């Protein structure tokens, strides 16, 4: 990974530090499963998703709210998949 992308991923990861523990855990699992080298599409979608307020974002992730945006829907799907089935012991 070039240093520019590394910096962008670092910023993105920091923006995954949220005010709600629920989201922290979902994002932690996401990164553990995806690794740092995510594709440009996911990077763009995640960047947009991270601009949401915490409670709204959590409602989207847990399915209580929906959004009419294909890219974001796909990204939310990835977060949801990461959320299930991870074993304990990974929590920061």
């Amino acid at each position: 990974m070039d240093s520019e992308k590394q910096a962008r991923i670092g910023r993105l990861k920091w923006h995954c530090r949220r005010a709600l523990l629920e989201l922290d855990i979902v994002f932690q699992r996401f990164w553990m499963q995806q690794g740092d080298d995510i594709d440009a599409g996911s990077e763009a979608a995640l960047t947009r998703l991270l601009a949401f307020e915490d409670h709204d974002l959590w409602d989207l992730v847990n399915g209580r709210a929906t959004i009419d945006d294909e890219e974001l829907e796909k990204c939310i799907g990835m977060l949801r998949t990461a959320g299930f089935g991870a074993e304990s012991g990974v929590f920061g």
Partner: protein
Amino acid sequence: MSYTVRKFDAVIVGAGGAGLRAAIQLSEAGYKTAVLTKVFPTRSHTVAAQGGVAASLGNSEEDHWHWHMYDTVKGSDWLGDQDAIEFMCRKANEVVVELEHYGMPFDRLDNGKIYQRPFGGHMSNFGEKPVRRSCAAADRTGHAMLHAMYQRNVKVNTQFFVEWMALDLIRDPEGDVQGVTAMDMETGEIVAFHSKATIFATGGAGRIYYSSTNAFINTGDGVGMAARAGIPLEDMEFWQFHPTGVAGAGVLITEGVRGEGGILRNSNGERFMERYAPNAKDLASRDVVSRAMVTEINEGRGCGPNKDFVLLDITHLPPETIMKRLPGIHEIALQFAGVDALKEPIPVVPTCHYQMGGIPTNYRGEVVIGVDSTPVKGFYAAGECACASVHGANRLGTNSLLDLLVFGKSAGETAVEDLKKSGAHKPLDTASIDATLARVNRLNTQTGGSNVHETRLAMQRTMQKHAGVFRFNELLKEGVTKILEVADDVARTEIKDKSQVFNTARIEAFELDNLIEVAKATMISAEARKESRGAHVRDDAIDNDVTPNGRDDQNWLKHTLWHRDGNRLEYKPVKMKPLTVDTIELKKRAY
């Protein structure tokens, strides 16, 4: 390694409820004020608060600040300072109304007044019956509060440094505070913020425990920085545990679930709370339920392969009730426990929730040191990182948001008063800055060191096992040895990635430097306190008429002060004298 210097009248570290409230005071008075924050202000952990903020407005029924004061003293198990508690309860209406003027969208009654709901431990007429005292904005109280105060700050020209991490306090040889050193996460640049007033509002440190309801951001940075600068930490043995955090994840399951009929069961399927609290059962107070759960686990009746959790059962409730009255619970259980709560019970454990101790302050928000509480010149603190001490050994729900508003404002006001009397900045003490640079350099050059993630996990497991809900003499003693061993590993953490821009590995290593100070203070203070009081519950404390519930007022009605230097402990008296009213006299705490 180089650094630059930036000068301000005041520097505030933290942009949660306490930091934002303090900043309004300083900027409104025209002082050049910088607010440093690791994350965007409205993503501070205050966002997670839903229950509300306490104030005896009396909008729905009669209420009085004196009743609120009584509840808070009793809730604190008499460890709270009664002058600070009177101050907070008297100021509550004023700060809530101010918040309303800043644009906070409180829920309303038909007559337009702020709607108020009841909350555990808040009573009318000196403990007689529950009273409606909590003011909320739907289930987003903390979030709405931060938005209102952030907007106000923008209006009065507070200067925000977002995604900046404060690293150390700058304290000169006379003991006066002159600002902080900080790192710009975007560039890795180190800057000395040179100020006449420095306010810490960095929030709690719940991440010292393996199981915590706190978001990852709560790493006790302010508390750690203060300890490294020679400021003692007060009452760090007192941590509130919430009974129902999802096992493994920690995510909070609200008390409302048991309110709607949820039942706790052990591995035999038994509703064990019937044995511990025959009347209130699963709805007994937080500390009683948490202790019962841990007893079941310790006696081998826990569930799962390691027998280390109990079950919260709502399968007998109609699915419509769960989906309608308990929104979000089904999703949380599915997401974090992998169970469909309509069909299977949810694994839960008592989970660390709130830090009652912290940086010692008085009700004016000044940081104070020593047995006689001498103010440290130029240093103030407020919010969860501070210990005023209003929560004493146990906090009442909704009193934390009130603490942020009252003491955030008070710290800001005192700083303004002091700034009015101050001259030019004192010459900057470069020795403190050199200490930061040495710490940064150590981390950058460490080889053959310890892994940050593994060391943090070792700390969290040690705290969970040795200083949890129930505390045992032998376990505490062992815990002290173990946490000091972990501290040795923290001193030699190594990061592989040495890049400058948004290097999260480096940030986490610095956070661990702070967490470990909190962990040491907690373990050592807990080991030393040979009684049960509020959230500090020892297995060997004797419950009789002289020491009710194990509380030993004759020997232990005093605040702990832990010094980093040599892990020394000293004790200072509890302020039993309020500002204007009579002392609320000691008695057995029973509900």
